[in-house]
Each structure stands twice: as C-alpha cells, then as structure tokens.
C-alpha cells in the first residue's frame, strides 16, 4: 500500500471520528485533518482505487463491488405507517471509500436561492411539513465555489440565466457536447427555453494529478478508471491522508454511538471485518453515513438516557425523507447520436425550476438530455412500446435504435412529508442481528402531478427536436430511493429539527451530522453538490467551535 497512512488505536481518543467517507465525510476528513485535528474515518465498505475499477460488470453488479450489500444489510418497505413493511431493497448507496460519489452520474448543479426560503415564499402546503433553511444561498455560496475548485467541476458560468450569483467561474470548461445535447439545445431554443452546458463533477482537463475524461461512457454505476470523475475518493480523500493526521479505516460497520452519563458522545462502536467489536474513542463524533444510515445509527443508539434514539428529542430523526421526484421521456432519431460515448449528460435546462403558481403546482424541476443505458438495459427496457420481445424484428429494432435513442430526464422537488421516513424494522434483522432499515414512503400528490406536467414538456421537446418516435416511462409512486435527503433536518427550533446551522445536534453537544439528512428541502434533484458545500461549511463551523473550546467543554 503506497498511500500515506497514519493509524490510531481505538483506545486513542482522537479529535474526531467521522462515520462514512462519501461526499460529505470525505470533505470533512480533508478539512478537519488539514486544520490540524486527528481524525479517524470509519467506512463500512472497502478501500478500492482507480486500478480496481474496470468495465467488468460482473464485479460491479454481481458482487456489488461499490454498493450496499443487501444480503448483509436488508431493507424493508411500506407505503404508510399503518402498513407492515415487507422485505425489499428500497435504498441504494455507495459502500466503499468515496461512497456514492464513486458511482454517481456526476450532475453538479448548485441549489438556487429559492430552495433555502421557499416556505416563506409559498406558505404552508397541505400534507407537507415544509420549512425554510436556517441558512441562505449567500451563506453557502463561498462553499459551492470551493467545491468546484477543490474537487473539480466542469461548466460554463453565466450560461444559464436562472443560475444564482457566483463569486468565481468554473475552474474548467464544460465537457464535450453529445448528440443528445445538440438536439436538445436546438429544440429547447426553438421553444424559447434556455439550455446550457451541464455542470459536471468530471474533469474536462487534467487537474491536480488526475486525468481528464476519456469519454468511455461507463459513468453511472461505475468507478472512474482514470480518476476523472470527482469522487471523494479521487479528490479529497488523498488530501486528507497526505496530512498524516487522518486514518481511513475500512470494513467497519458502526452500529452505535456511545454516550457517557453526562450525555456526551464518547465514540463510535463498530464491528470489524472479523466481527470483533471496538469502540473508537473521540472528542467529537460526526455522522456522514448518508440520509438512511445516519438516522438508523441514531435510532440504534437509544439508551435509558435517550430512549427515543440519540439526538431525537424532536422525534424528527428519520422523518421527512425526500428522494426527489422524477420523470423520463425517450426519443429515437433518424441518424446515429452515438450517445453511449461520453458522460451521460451534456445539456441541462432550468426554465422550470420555479413553476408559475398559476399552474397549480408547487416547486419545479430541471431537465437534462442524457443517455445512461447499457446495451443490455436498452434491450430490456429502452425500446419503444409495442416492439416485439424477440425474433428478427426485435433484433432489427434494437440494432437500429441503440445508437439513435436519447432520454430527457426530469428531476424535481420532493415535498417533505413527516410520515415519509427511515426507521428500525421491528421484525427484520440484518446479518448481525440488528434491526433492518425500514422505509415508509408515499409521494406527496403534488410531486406526482408536477412530474406529469414535466413529462408532457419533455415530450414536446422531443417533438421539436425531430424525434421520429417518442414515449415516456409511467409516472408512479416511488418505492426506491437513491437521494436520501432530509431525514435529520437542520433548523433553529430544537422541537422541529435535529441539528442547528452548525450541524451540531440540538441534544448532544459533541455530536454533528452532515450528509443528505441535513437538507431541509430537496432542491430539484442533484443534491451532491449541496451536500459537499454543506460539508465544507460545517468543517469551518466545527473548527471554529473546537478552537474556541466549545466542543470539549
């Protein structure tokens, strides 16, 4: 192993133990170790690097090389709290150093100003547990910029008239346009909209010892072999390790945050690969385990002192899950697009980010032109309705369409609904005998209605683009989440939120949460950029608290 390593004993009381090495945990590890603190990161998955990443789908999918292993960590699902949950996979997240940032698509929009104060503007929405953030876009802007420059984001500043203010341009030009981007751009302009080059966390130029994108087309689901995708693994984790103060400890299943009689966190209890139990002691604990596992870990840490779960005096731990709404339209063109080459997305449109209230819809969404099929998934699910399922005509349609198909993906608001949640399943246990993660979810009716509207616009765009065949995936209630947002929300009032604006839990002074669970609203999809900006900001806040002696006191 050539990477720089410092190791600590579990009995060493380090300054911070961070649970999770993904989008947020990686940033916090880098920032806090750079600021002079001793940090241990406990990661559930393995330490893979670029050399382990290939296009070998057997490793990626058959062995779940990069993602949560459902035979070890089963999940259950139900639509309402009145139902009994059934065993089914309902969440997917990265389980390796770098977390989901290793396998994600790398769409990297900033949230807009409205996302932070939409409740004030709109008022209450029936059935939604809607709130403003305790921070504004302006508070976060310097950190968005820091993300773009430090991890590496490609894009073109000023290309969208809907973009929020920014203090600096992107560090790199956009990635090459694809066929789908060209036809999308021409069609949307014809309709009076404002397409722009997609901001992507993928390097368009070599940077900081990392290679530029080679347009291999294996982004979504795969780790990047050349380190061009700006995962935590490729960007901030190596910086953290170079400080000589940060240990990334892998194959650690953290299942409890231990507290003392004064109600302070003393460290994280985990199983190692051999199922031995350890307590990593720390002066402060930071959970960045994602919007599903962070609340689960708090609930698993219940004690006599914290009977409802740690940091859960509000009862909000695990509540208000927002997975983002989505819709999809597909089109087939006369000439080859060859969209299997290059990153999935090259053009985006934000004209529907804030929908006109006269439409009777709340929120809004973004749209992108993309192609994220593999040959197999296109053959199984990407052919137009009515295509024969087998035989010469099936083969002929597949052969014609594979290079000529594109998608328009609509991403949108999920309203927070209190009963939409992660909790502990009372019956199903994981491979360690601990309660399984249970998801309770039913989309707010507005979100489904809005996606119907968005889907109709996407079909109009395909018409204007000259698609000779077009269709859409049905809009239906979701039972599977990858954007795990809002489940330990940030807020000023300890009765209606779990953490404050410093990411500190209202209940436990030396316990901090920072990941998708911190979000108060869902934005319009593509949350990773905001999660990382929050992590950079949290690191500043936590550093200031520690230096003032306000964490250990």
């Amino acid at each position: 192993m050539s990477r720089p390593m410092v190791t600590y004993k579990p009995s060493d009381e380090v300054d911070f133990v961070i649970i999770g090495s993904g989008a947020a945990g990686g940033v916090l590890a880098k920032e806090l170790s750079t600021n002079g603190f001793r940090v241990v990161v406990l990661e559930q998955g393995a330490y893979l690097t670029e050399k382990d990443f290939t296009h070998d789908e057997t490793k990626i999918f058959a062995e779940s090389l990069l993602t949560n292993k459902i035979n070890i960590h089963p999940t259950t699902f139900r639509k309402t709290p009145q139902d009994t949950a059934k065993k089914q996979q309902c969440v997917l997240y990265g389980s390796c150093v770098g977390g989901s940032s290793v396998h994600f698509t790398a769409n990297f929009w900033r949230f807009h100003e409205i996302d932070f104060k939409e409740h004030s503007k709109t008022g209450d929405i029936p059935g939604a547990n809607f709130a403003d953030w305790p921070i504004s876009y302006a508070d976060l802007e310097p950190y968005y910029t820091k993300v773009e420059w430090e991890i590496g984001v490609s894009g073109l500043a000023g290309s969208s008239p809907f973009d929020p203010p920014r203090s600096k341009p992107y560090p790199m030009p956009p990635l090459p346009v694809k066929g789908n981007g060209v036809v999308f751009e021409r069609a949307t302009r014809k309709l009076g909209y404002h397409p722009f080059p997609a901001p992507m966390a993928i390097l368009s130029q070599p940077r900081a010892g990392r290679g530029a994108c080679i347009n291999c087309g294996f982004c979504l689901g795969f780790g990047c072999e050349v380190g061009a995708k700006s995962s935590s693994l490729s960007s901030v984790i190596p910086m953290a390790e170079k400080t000589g103060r940060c240990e990334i400890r892998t194959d650690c299943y953290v299942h409890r945050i231990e507290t003392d009689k004064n109600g302070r966190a003393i460290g994280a209890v985990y199983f190692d690969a051999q199922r031995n139990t350890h307590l990593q002691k720390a002066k402060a604990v930071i959970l960045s385990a994602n919007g599903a596992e962070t609340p689960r870990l708090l609930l698993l840490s219940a004690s006599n002192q914290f009977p409802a779960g740690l940091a859960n005096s509000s009862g909000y731990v695990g509540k208000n899950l927002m997975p983002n709404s989505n819709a999809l339209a597909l089109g087939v063109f006369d000439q080859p697009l060859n969209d299997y080459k290059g990153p999935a997305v090259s053009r985006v449109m934000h004209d529907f980010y804030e929908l006109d209230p006269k439409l009777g819809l709340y929120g809004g969404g973004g749209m992108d032109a993309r192609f994220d099929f593999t040959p197999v998934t296109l053959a199984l699910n990407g052919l137009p309705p009515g295509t024969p399922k087998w035989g010469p005509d099936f083969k002929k349609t597949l052969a014609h369409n594979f290079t000529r198909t594109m998608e328009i993906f609509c991403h949108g608001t999920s309203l927070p609904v209190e009963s939409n949640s992660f909790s502990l399943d009372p019956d199903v246990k994981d491979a360690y005998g601990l309660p399984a993660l249970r998801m309770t979810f039913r989309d707010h009716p507005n979100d489904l209605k809005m996606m119907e509207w968005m889907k109709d616009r996407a079909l109009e765009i395909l018409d204007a683009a000259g698609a000779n065949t077009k269709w859409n995936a049905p809009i239906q209630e979701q039972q599977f989440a990858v954007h795990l947002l809002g489940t330990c929300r940030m807020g000023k009032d300890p009765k209606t939120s779990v953490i404050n604006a410093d990411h500190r839990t209202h209940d436990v002074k030396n316990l901090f949460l920072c990941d998708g669970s911190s979000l108060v609203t869902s934005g319009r999809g593509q949350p990773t950029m905001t999660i990382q900006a929050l992590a950079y900001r949290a690191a500043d806040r936590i550093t200031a608290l520690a230096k003032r002696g306000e964490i250990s006191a």
Partner: protein
Amino acid sequence: MNSFDSARRDFLQLLGGTAGAAWLTAQWPAVVSAAQHAHDAAKAPQPTTFEVLTPDEAHELDAITACMIPTTDTPGAREAGVVYFIDRALKTFAREGLPAYRQGLEHIQKFTAESFPGTPRFSAASPQQQQEILTKLFSENDPQKSAVSFGIPAGGANFLSTVRVYAIFGFLVDPEGGGNRDFVGWKAIGRDASHSFSPPFGFYDKDYPGWQPVPGETEKK
C-alpha cells in the same frame, strides 16, 4: 428471487435513470456473473462439454435462444455464446432453479410434440414451426408471474420470459465481464468496442459550432 438478487434488479432501475420507471425487471448481477463464464469459454479452446446442462438440454436451449436473437445478416445468440452463459448461470447463482429449468424445457418439448406430431423436440422443428411455438407460448405468458426470476424460473411461457432475459444478457453484456463473445452483440447493435472516444460522437454533433449565448437572453431572470 432473494433480496440480494432483487437488490441488483433495483440497481438497474437506478441505472435506467429513474426508480419510478419500469426498468430492468431482471436480475442483473447473477446474469453478469454467468457472463464471466461465457467470456472464459470464449477465450478457451472451443468447449465441448457443459458444466450443468446435458448436451441435449444445451442443444435445445441453443435452438430456443437462437430463435429469440436469430443469426441474420449479423451474428445472434448462438455466435455470442449465450448457451454457455446459461450453463454457467445454472451452475452458480441460479443453481436452485435447475429443476424448474428442466421442467420448463420439458414443457416446451411436450408442447412441441403436441403441436406438431412427429416432432419430438423444439430443435427438430422447422424455423416456421419454432416461430409458432414461441409465439404461442409467449402469448400464454402471465405478466403477474413473469416478473422475471432468474433463480427459480417459472414453467411454460413464463419460463421463456426468463430465458429471454438470459439471452439478452449473454448477447450484450460488456465483454469485460464475459459474454458477448468477440463483441458480436455490440457489433450487431452498432456499438463501437473502443475503450475511449473523442468528439464528435455522432451525426448531430459533428457540425456543432460550440455553445453560443442567445443575445440578450443570459441576463438574470
């Protein structure tokens, strides 16, 4: 199908871009595991034996999958080594389904013999008869029961739905993971087998002049 397997199915839903859409109803992981074998088989000297299937069973499955993805002006399931992919599956992730697989094959043979007296096996039927058999059996497919389970294939028509998904995987799975022997599946659908690409990628971007702002339209909305 156990939860481990359904996890992969759902991962493919993610890959499709939306969890809400009806994406892959198949079990990706297990199938690609089998693909490794097809790849190995392709690299090795032409295999003469199968690990699980009897020669007769392999012959019948080859005939069925070749009917589903036929050899036309381009190679089909047969040239891609799909039957080796299936053999491997039945040795590994789908081994519990082997009895059901055998039952499914038996059902097809029985159906063939009843439909065309004097024709005891699917492989012995004429191309037109084979088309008729698959058409009839697929039309009996119960969509409720064919939410494709690789591990335990349903009988009869639903069994065919299972075999179809195997055939597609064996034909098109990335050769880095096995299957798609000599890239024949990719060639048949026009996918360049190169590992990296440079723009322009296709027809529509080749004369793209570069992104231009619309005059007067990039001011703050």
